[in-house]
């Protein structure tokens, strides 16, 4: 029997995903028509040995309850949400709920970061892990460019055994092009290692009289577990070349949207001209003269009127796009409204197509001149864009009613 644990953080995390995360928890943000972590759940549920999925985070249960119950119905796997009583870091939550994980004596469990998107190769990962009886943790790794590798966890492996001999999280200088994808297979014995780390932290906390800030239960999976395990022949990494990306910003949501749409091609009864790939919720109403795609996801209850053009965008539930408007490289928030003949346009921040293994750049919001970096245009929930205006490379916070055009601005 196998289990899976998905780590999703909380409202204090994922701030780069604002303003989209102001209305919806990032793990529930729909990409290619499905909430972000539903893609994780679907991948786990594909393995028949996987009997239970635990989601650990610090969002309140109310935020997650509906989602969890929907997932149970859809996938027929036990799914539970475990709320951390306080943010405990990438390792603390897992350790805190170790009994839940160990219950039923699974042979091993998958551990997945909630903010990555991938063509998850869980079966292969599990096979790789099983072949190595001494492995406590197997990490899914992928190749990055030299320059970009320093933004991730970097690993050096022994050539034949694939054991990780060195692990460092976000080094200052180049270490290795093999990076940690945030997807793991773990044996239950890993909790012993975590217990030792926990003990060390407790001692440190009490000897400093609680003055060193973080809660004693706070633990970093990367610093406190992976790093010490490197070089002990208990940590292994499997390199894959499947598509993989982090989702930190709205720009990466558009990029992930494109790839998930390609992976999960759905048969569409096209109501209008469609350039694949497109996800269209069955309850969306689309005029026959609209032209949609490529790489568009349209959520429930959305209305797309005559002569509209949408490409490379995500349209969230119940939004309305009025006649002749054009939406590209944008996220249109729930119940937002785009006026007739308006133009809502963003700029993609895709990985450099000329560099092999290039990843998304995750640029800061502003450049060194203090100007807004061109990026995906975002309309928060309930935003109204009047007719005949242009919104270029701008971010509009929820419920704002615009009265004129904007370019390269954040509109509060």
């Amino acid at each position, binding site marked *: 029997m196998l289990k899976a644990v998905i780590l999703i953080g909380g409202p204090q995390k994922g701030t780069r995903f604002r303003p989209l995360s102001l209305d919806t928890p990032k793990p529930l943000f729909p990409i290619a028509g499905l909430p972000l972590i539903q893609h994780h759940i679907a991948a786990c549920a594909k393995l028949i040995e996987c009997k239970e999925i635990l989601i650990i985070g610090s969002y309140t249960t109310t935020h997650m309850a509906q989602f969890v119950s929907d997932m149970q119905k859809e996938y027929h796997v036990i799914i539970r949400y475990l709320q951390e009583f306080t943010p405990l870091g990438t390792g603390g939550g897992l350790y805190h709920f170790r009994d839940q994980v160990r219950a039923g004596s699974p042979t091993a469990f998958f551990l997945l970061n909630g903010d990555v998107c991938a063509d998850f190769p869980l079966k292969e990962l599990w096979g790789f892990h099983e072949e190595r009886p001494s492995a406590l943790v197997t990490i899914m790794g992928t190749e990055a460019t030299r320059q970009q590798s320093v933004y991730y966890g970097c690993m050096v492996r022994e050539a034949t055994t694939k054991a990780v001999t060195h692990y460092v999280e976000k080094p200052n200088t180049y270490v290795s092009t093999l990076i940690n994808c945030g997807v793991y297979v773990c044996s239950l014995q890993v909790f012993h290692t975590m217990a030792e780390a926990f003990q060390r932290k407790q001692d440190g906390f009490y000897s400093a009289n609680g003055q060193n800030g973080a809660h004693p239960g706070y633990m970093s999976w990367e610093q406190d577990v992976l790093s010490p395990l490197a070089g002990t022949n208990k940590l292994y990494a499997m390199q894959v070349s499947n598509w993989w990306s982090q989702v930190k910003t709205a720009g990466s949501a558009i990029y992930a949207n494109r790839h998930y749409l390609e992976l999960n091609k759905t048969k569409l009864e096209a109501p209008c001209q469609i350039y694949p790939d497109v996800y269209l919720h069955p309850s969306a109403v689309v005029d026959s*003269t609209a032209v949609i795609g490529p790489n568009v996801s349209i959520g429930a209850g959305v209305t797309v009127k005559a*002569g509209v053009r949408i490409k490379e965008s995500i349209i969230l539930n119940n939004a309305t796009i009025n006649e*002749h408007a*054009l939406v590209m490289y944008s996220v249109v928030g729930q119940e937002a409204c785009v006026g*007739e*003949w308006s133009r809502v*346009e963003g700029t993609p921040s895709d990985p450099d197509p000329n560099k092999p293994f290039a990843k998304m750049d995750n640029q800061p919001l502003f450049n060194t001149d203090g100007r807004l970096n061109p990026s995906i245009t975002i309309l928060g929930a309930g935003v109204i864009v009047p007719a*005949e205006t*242009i919104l270029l490379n701008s971010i509009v916070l929820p419920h704002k009613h615009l009265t004129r055009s904007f370019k390269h601005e954040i509109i509060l």
Partner: protein
Amino acid sequence: MCGSDKKLGEIRALILVGGYGTRLRPLTLSRPKPLVEFANKPILLHQIEALVEAGVTQVILAVSYRADDMEKELTEQVSKLGVSLTFSHETEPLGTAGPLALAKDLLNTSTEPFFVLNSDVICDFPFKELAKYHKSHGKEGTIVVTKVEEPSKYGVVVYKDDGQIESFVEKPQEFISNKINAGMYVLNPSVLSRIDLRPMSIEKEVFPFMAQDGQLYAMELQGFWMDVGQPKDFLTGMCLYLNSLRQKNSDKLHDGAGVVGNVLIDPTATIGNGCRIGPNVTIGPNVIIEDGACIKRSTILRGACVRQHAWLDGCIVGWRSVVGRWVRMENCTVLGEDVIVKDELYINGGQVLPHKSIALSVPEPQIIM
């Protein structure tokens, strides 16, 4: 014979066409400026028709560039009006007064005063009133003046209550008056003795002396006026002209579904369904506007095509150009002849040279060669 329609003798007119029309590029890269269609008719023809209505029988065009093109095109059209057209070809630029000296022989054929006008001017042409007023004061010259909002951009005219001009001030730094030279005059042939055959400025080297001698009068123009020598003013002038058509209750203006405000559409143009045209739009012959397009404050020249769902505000679309589907163009974008703008682009203040194909958006004002 009714007196109100009295012909004023063998009246001649000289139109200063001048040179390259560089301020109206890229349009003037394909056609000489006087032939660029303003409200679906070459500017020059607006002027010549008004002159003919005032009894002019001979029009002299003072040109320095592309005289042959203009001769070919104009001679036929103008002959239908029953007026003779003569070209006075400057081999070197002679300024605003020199051309009169060049055409001296033609102008001296009669003792009647003659009209002079700047080819960039559009207004409710007052040639009949001008001639009458000129005869009434009996001096050597009369200048039409008009009120503008920003007089410091032009030459300001200072004159007494009875109309006698006292002085001219070019581009004054401090406010003196809001009346400027509107680019239309009527002059007695005796003025020709004040002009030599060399580059001369009429505003600087002729009028001031006439004013000193008390020989120059001003007549205020009623109604709209515009110098349409550059795209921004071309569009403003178009709005004023269409408004004046509306006030004269012209049936030339278009009405109907999807038409807003003052709109002029050539009968050979086709407009699709669900469009919104206007206010202040002129659409030329054989133009195709496809379904769902929205056009405001723009001129679409002959043979152009605006494709589905495009949105235009304050643009000039050159002859035979194609504006792609869902394109947004604004802020005085000018497309030269035969320009293609691909689907879904955004052009903000672009000046696009002829025969160019645009495949990338132009989000900030730029010249595209």
